[in-house]
Structure formats: C-alpha cells, structure tokens
C-alpha cells in the first residue's frame, strides 16, 4: 500500500486501527518530497514533522489528544503550507529574495488551529513571489512544475501547495487566494481547492497582499478532505477583525431540483474549445441528475479583470511598503534612510512585484486616483450587485476556472497582460467576497481541467455538498 495515496479520512481510519503510524505516514511523504523534481517545496520542516508525528502516535496510543480532547480528524496527517503563512520558528520567504532568511516569530491562526488538532507540517510550499501571479513562475526560487507535464506550470500563486497534493507530496495543503490563487493551481494540477467566503477564515499570520481580497483555504485530494480542513481552520479570530463568527452547517444538498446558474458572459471568445466542452459536459451531467440549468447574466464581469488589477496592486503597494530594510528581511547599506529604502526594495523585489507596486502607486497618486482607484471601487460595487441578483434566482453558479489548461513554462512570462488574462474567471469571486471551489472534472490529454462552483456568502456547505455529488458522478 502506498501511504501517500490515502485521503485524510482513509489515513485517519488507518491510524485509528493501528495499520500504520503517523511516523510511517510522515516518512513516506518525506521520502516522496526528497525524490521530487517539481520544486514544490521551498523548505522541508523534517524535524518539526517527525516530532509532531511522534506526538500524534502517542495520542493514538492513549486514545485521546492534548488536554484529554477527542482525537481530531487531522491528527497525525501530514500537510504542506504555502510559504506566505507563518509557522513559528520556520523560514517564511513569500518566495521573495527580500524575505529569504526571515524566520516567523509566531504561528498564523490557521497554523495554531491545525496544531491544536495534531497536524503534521511537512514544509513550506513554493508560490509566486508575494502570491502575485497565475502561473507560479514569479517565484524568486524557480517555477513549480506541473506533476502531469513537467514542461508546464503548476498554476499560481499557490503553485507548490497544489503540485504537492497532486503528486502525493502532502495529504493536503493550505493556500491563499486573492484573485484565483487557490482555484487556478488546483485546476491546473487536478486537485480540489476551496477559496472560502471573505471573513470565513482568519488571515492573521498570512503575509498580506490585497487585504480586501485575501483569503486562506484548503487544497485537497477530494471534496470531503477539503471540507474537513475548511471546518478545522474557519471561524472568528480576535486577531483578524474581518473574520466572522461562522459555524459550518452540515448539509446534504443533492442535484435534484438544484438551480444552477451559468453566466453567459463566461463562454465567449478567448476560452479554449476543449475547456468549454469539458465544463459544459459536467453541467450537462448535473442536469441529467435533476438540476435545473438557468442561463444568467453578470453584465459587469467584463470589467472585473481591470477592476481587480487596479484594486489588488493598490492594496499591495500599501501592504508591501513595510518591506523597507528596517524591520525584517534584506537590508542594503545606504548613505541615508531613503537610500536604504530604495536599494533594499529595488534589489529585494522581483519584476512582477515591482510592476504591481508601480501600478498601485500610479493608480493611487494625485491626479489619477479618481480615474483608477475610485472608478474601480464603483465597478466592484456593480459586480457585487450582479452576483447578489444572480443568487436571488439560483443556488450556485457553475463556470470554468481558467480559459486554458496549464500553459508551458515561459509561454507568457514576457507579456504580463496575457498572464493576467488567465484570472478572468476567478477575480470576480474575490471582488464580491464570495466562496468558490475548483474541482477536477476532465482532462485534455494529460492536463486536468477544473470546474468552478461559486456560492453565495457563507454557503460553503452548499458548494461542498453539491461538489461531492458531482465527484461521485465522475468516478
């Protein structure tokens, strides 16, 4: 039996029955990581993982966890964490030269929650620098390769988190999603990724990119696992004022009678014919099971990409101002304070990060603010209204995740705008603060294609329940 093929639920059962130990499981994953050439991990936290595995085994031997608590589903299960989320005492680089040697001084709230469950942390995964990118190629430490075709990208920005799960280098992982960064790599790598509702999961300890958009979420081997992890990390946290008191309600919503909205604006020119076919096929399968398919219109989504690529860089230009060579990270010598700032940022940030800081600074600068930032905020309001109207008529929205399957490494790196266009179906969800899931529903040759399921605010239960029905239809 290959232990790295087990889902969370299966591994949990095996640990409970004593078929294998968490140390066995952890070693199996560590072995896979060592042999891998995907570049999905930036650092492997072997010592931490093995000590956590030993603790988990002790808990299973006793029959209860720390402080006499019931053993959780994630106890002893090895996971990988995007290297933009702080794990105390471990490096956290955000895949940037500017944080190459930064050691996290505390645990992010999601890490605290995983540790309380007895999770095993295998290491920190590769990403586009500061989570800015759709392909994974903007990492200062090299691109993550797609496990299904190593000449292609894994998708970004949570590139390593998706590739690791797809290739059995972790049982599940955490990613973050500002404009598609969980859903896009999940689609490209053929795994299941959930971008939760804005406010459902605390971002405390996530290196901030676009604070009105950022959300942490799970990447897993199947829908059930994604749900297990989501339940473990969600909820109110006093360290993140935007987090809400949210209790996940178990639900069993099947396809029969379900009203599925399909936005007509999402099937126009620019979408790969095969991607369209696979997406429509999975919608058809839902219809055959009794779902009602309703064509809907989201008239403002044509502006979503432009809106996103103003708002996200504006927020990034403010958030990244903190990397100034004083408090942490790379610090270049200079003749005065300004010189230290200029050189540290100039040498520490990569090309895409600089580009976004420049766009954001430009759009917020005097004379341009109204035309760009203010206008984008108004358009954001329209996009939110479009979705609100749609959800008066439908339960969920089905659409593609990306207009294309995984692209070749280097294919779009020379043209930033063409790279941004890969995010065309994902950014609206972040602008509207909605939950969205990507699940594998087909393949073009070796390359997986994901279906995106969007729900209304805090309706992750509906998304996950329906997704698990779709999953059964496909297998």
């Amino acid at each position, binding site marked *: 039996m290959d232990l790295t093929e087990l889902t969370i639920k299966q591994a949990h059962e095996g640990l409970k029955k004593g078929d294998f130990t968490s140390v066995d499981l952890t070693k199996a994953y560590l072995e896979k990581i060592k042999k891998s050439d995907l570049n999905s991990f930036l650092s492997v936290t072997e010592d931490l993982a093995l000590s956590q595995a030993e603790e988990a085994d002790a808990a299973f031997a006793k029959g209860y966890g720390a402080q006499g608590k019931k053993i959780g589903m994630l106890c002893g299960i090895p996971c990988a964490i995007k290297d933009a989320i702080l794990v105390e005492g471990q490096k956290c680089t955000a895949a940037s030269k500017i944080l190459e040697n930064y*050691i996290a001084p505390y645990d992010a709230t999601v890490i605290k929650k995983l540790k309380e469950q007895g999770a095993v942390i295998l290491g920190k995964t590769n990403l586009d620098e500061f989570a800015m990118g759709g392909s994974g190629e903007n990492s200062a430490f090299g691109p993550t390769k797609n496990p299904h075709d190593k000449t292609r990208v894994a998708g970004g920005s949570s590139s390593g988190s998706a590739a690791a799960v797809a290739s059995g280098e972790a049982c599940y992982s955490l990613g973050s999603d500002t404009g598609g960064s969980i859903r896009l790599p999940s689609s490209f790598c053929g795994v299941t990724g959930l971008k939760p509702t804005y406010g459902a999961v605390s971002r405390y300890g996530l290196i901030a990119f676009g604070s009105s958009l950022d959300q942490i979420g799970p990447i897993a081997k199947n829908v059930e696992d994604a749900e297990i992890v989501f339940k473990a990390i969600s909820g109110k946290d006093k360290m993140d004022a*935007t987090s809400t008191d949210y209790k996940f309600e178990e639900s069993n919503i099947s396809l029969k009678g379900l009203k599925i909205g399909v936005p007509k604006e999402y099937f126009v020119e620019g979408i790969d014919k095969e991607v369209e076919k696979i997406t429509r096929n999975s919608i058809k399968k839902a219809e055959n099971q009794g779902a009602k398919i309703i064509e809907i219109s989201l008239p*403002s989504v044509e502006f979503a990409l432009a809106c996103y690529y103003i708002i996200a860089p504006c927020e990034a230009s403010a958030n990244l101002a903190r990397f100034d060579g004083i408090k942490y990270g790379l610090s270049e010598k200079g003749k005065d*304070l300004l010189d230290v700032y200029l050189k540290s940022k100039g040498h520490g940030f990569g090309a895409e990060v600089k580009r976004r800081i*420049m766009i954001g600074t430009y759009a917020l600068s005097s004379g341009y603010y109204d035309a760009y930032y203010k206008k984008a905020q108004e358009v954001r309001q329209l996009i939110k209204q479009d979705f609100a109207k749609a959800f008066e008529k439908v339960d969920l929205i089905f659409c593609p995740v990306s207009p294309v399957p995984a692209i070749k490494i280097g294919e779009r790196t020379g043209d930033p705008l063409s790279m941004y266009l890969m995010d065309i179906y994902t950014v609206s969800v972040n602008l509207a603060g909605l939950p969205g899931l990507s699940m594998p529903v087909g393949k073009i040759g070796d390359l997986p294609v994901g279906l995106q399921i969007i729900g209304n605010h805090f309706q992750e239960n509906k998304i996950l329940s329906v997704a698990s029905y779709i999953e059964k239809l496909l297998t």
Partner: protein
Amino acid sequence: MISKEEVQHIAKLARLELTENEVEKMQKDLSAILDYFNLLKKAPSPAKILQEQNFGGQARKDEILPRDASLAEKIIAAAPDKKDDYIKVKTVF
C-alpha cells in the same frame, strides 16, 4: 506611452530603485496595462455610490491584548540592524 520621467517619479514615490533597463521595460508594461484599464471608462456608475463597502466583520476594541514577552524578542531578532532592545535606523538626512 508613459514617459521615462513619469516612471521615475512613481518609482521614487514607491521607494523603488530601478535600473535603466527596468525603467524602459516598465514604460512598456505599464502602458499596456493602463491601456487595458481604459475599459473601465465604458462601465456605468452605480445608482447609489457607497462610501464604504462593508464585507462584514468589525473593528475590535482599542485595547491591549496580552502577548508573550518572548514575541517582542523574536520580532526584534528579525531586524537586520539592532542594538540591545532597539532597532537601528539610518539617519534621515
């Protein structure tokens, strides 16, 4: 096309040192991206413009939350230049 001087001005506001090559590349990239943003001119304005877009969540009370003293040490330890419990900063002028 956005001018070289404009790129240099924005870079200075952003506290970014750019090389000659980077300035040239930035002129090209920013111009293409800003052109794309022109699409927004076609977008209507909302009937009622909200000043704030509330996503739920609320600011916490302005109060001191107890934290472990060792956290301060770890945070200072991360600073590139320090003396005792202080972070050193270059002179402003």
